[in-house]
């Protein structure tokens, strides 16, 4: 369990993290979402004591990070896969990390095997791609077999196979009862991987909930109808307070009415239906709606030009 309480961090006049409170429970993957510049990485650095917060604290199973005797056995964190010396080999990178927490050398070969880097363990890290560095970073996270895992954008630079691999690894680790907090901009991945969400904007907590309730709360909901005589249903639906949109020939999207109401009206009209389904927006839609107004950087319609 991770408990973040009243965490506040300023950089000069800018408040990067603003009295942030949230909890991360064990046994599930928790997604940490927010627009660029919302304070996710700063929060993670503050949680680990790397940035000095002005106020607040983070407890890992009730203990501040600073008081952990051998932190790599308790918390595995990957904040940036680029934090390596390019002249060292992967094995030597893991060796100094392992030595600092009294981890046996045999564990280095185990984690290299887990992340698939055994064959290139002796190569200098300057020859590693970003994806390989992400795998090495994950090896470092797993080194102490920690029960809490914190990852900042772990899928950056990974190919589709790598992205799927990291999703499988993280869900597997969570199922083992570990606490897993992952930040990512890949919302489709997050939708597949996370059960819980912590969403922040401009350093403040926007929402902490399960993915399902977050989407339920923020995403659009509508009913889709397909019928050879769909147009005949427009009048009755509108009269009943529905907002009807024709999205294709014989296909309507109806907002403001539920499936039961739409189905009964179709029955009254003795219509043949090819589809009657509830539709819900994606996590991406929910995220964009939840963080609207909390964007640090916004474009001015280049995509529309």
């Amino acid at each position, binding site marked *: 369990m991770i408990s973040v309480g009243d965490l506040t961090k300023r950089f000069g006049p800018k408040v990067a993290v603003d009295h942030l409170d949230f909890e991360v429970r064990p046994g599930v993957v928790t997604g940490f979402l927010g627009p660029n510049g919302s304070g996710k990485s700063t929060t993670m650095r503050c949680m680990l004591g*790397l940035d000095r917060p002005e106020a607040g604290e983070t407890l890992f199973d009730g203990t501040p990070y600073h008081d952990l005797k051998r*932190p*790599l056995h308790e918390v595995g964190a990957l*904040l940036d896969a680029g934090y*390596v*010396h390019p002249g060292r080999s992967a094995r030597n990178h893991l060796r*100094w990390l392992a030595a600092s*927490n*009294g981890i046996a050398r045999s564990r280095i070969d185990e984690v290299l095997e887990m992340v698939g880097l055994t064959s290139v363990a002796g190569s200098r890290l300057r020859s590693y791609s970003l994806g390989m560095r992400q795998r090495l970073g994950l090896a*470092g996270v797993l080194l102490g077999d920690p029960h809490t895992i914190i990852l900042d954008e772990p899928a950056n630079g990974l190919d589709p196979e790598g992205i799927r691999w990291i999703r499988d690894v993280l869900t597997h680790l969570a199922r083992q009862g570990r606490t897993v907090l992952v930040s990512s901009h890949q919302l489709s991945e997050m939708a597949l991987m996370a059960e819980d969400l912590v969403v922040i904007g401009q350093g403040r907590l926007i929402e902490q909930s399960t993915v399902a309730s977050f989407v339920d709360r923020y995403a659009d909901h509508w009913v889709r109808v397909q019928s050879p005589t769909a147009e005949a249903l427009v009048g009755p639906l509108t009269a009943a307070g529905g907002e009807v949109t024709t999205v294709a020939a014989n296909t309507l999207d109806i907002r403001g009415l539920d499936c039961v109401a739409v189905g009964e009206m179709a029955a009254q009209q003795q219509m043949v239906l090819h589809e009657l389904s509830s539709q819900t927006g994606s996590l991406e839609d929910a995220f964009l709606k939840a963080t609207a107004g909390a964007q640090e950087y916004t474009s001015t319609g280049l995509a529309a030009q």
Partner: protein
Amino acid sequence: MINLLRSEWIKLRTVTMNWVLAIIAVAFPLVVTLLTAFFSGDDAGFNTRDLASVLTGTAVVAALLCGVIAAASITSEFGFGTIRPTFAATPKRVKVIVAKGVVVVLATSVLAILVVLIGWLAGSNLSSSRGATIDLAEVPTAVPAMIGVVVLTALMSLAGYGFGLITRSTPVAVSILIVWPLIAEGLVGALLSVVTGNDNIGAWMPFQAGIRLVLVESIGDGGPSRIVSGGYFGVVALTLVALGSWAVNRRDA
């Protein structure tokens, strides 16, 4: 602490640049001493004092290079970002700073011992074979000066480490480490001599005081003694490390 010392030792010895600098640090005084012994060994005037002076004088360059190794040992961590996993693995930063300092000072001191031992043994044998009479007992200041090489190297490493902790930048730390003793102290010392009328004030410039540790010639010149000057430079070097530790402990990593 043993785990941390092991970790820092692995870091130090797995960077190729450290080995390159270490080899240069050992080779430079050795080569200069051997060349001098070879070309001057059959001169009637070449003696124990000359050989010891060449060895300890060129060892100052080795000490400076060791200072560069020490500075880079911490600045490269900030440069490449490895300081973050380092402090994540050991949240008590002072422990890391102490462990890294101990490892780098011990490692560079061993280099200095190698410089002195190899340089003296090879130089004295070569000089003797070229007809010079080399006898350490003739020059009572020679052994203290050679011990001074080891102490100076350790203190120069501490000073370099301190600059590294304070600046967190390899170019800045190395520039200060070179410009301060080689240029700035000469200028400041000369200026203070003019202002105060005290010709010996230059000997109290920190690095100049440190370099007095390796002087073979009599240092009864009105300046501080070998032990006092070494102690003074040691206090300056430790102060730099203490200031750097305070800054690193306080700042964001």
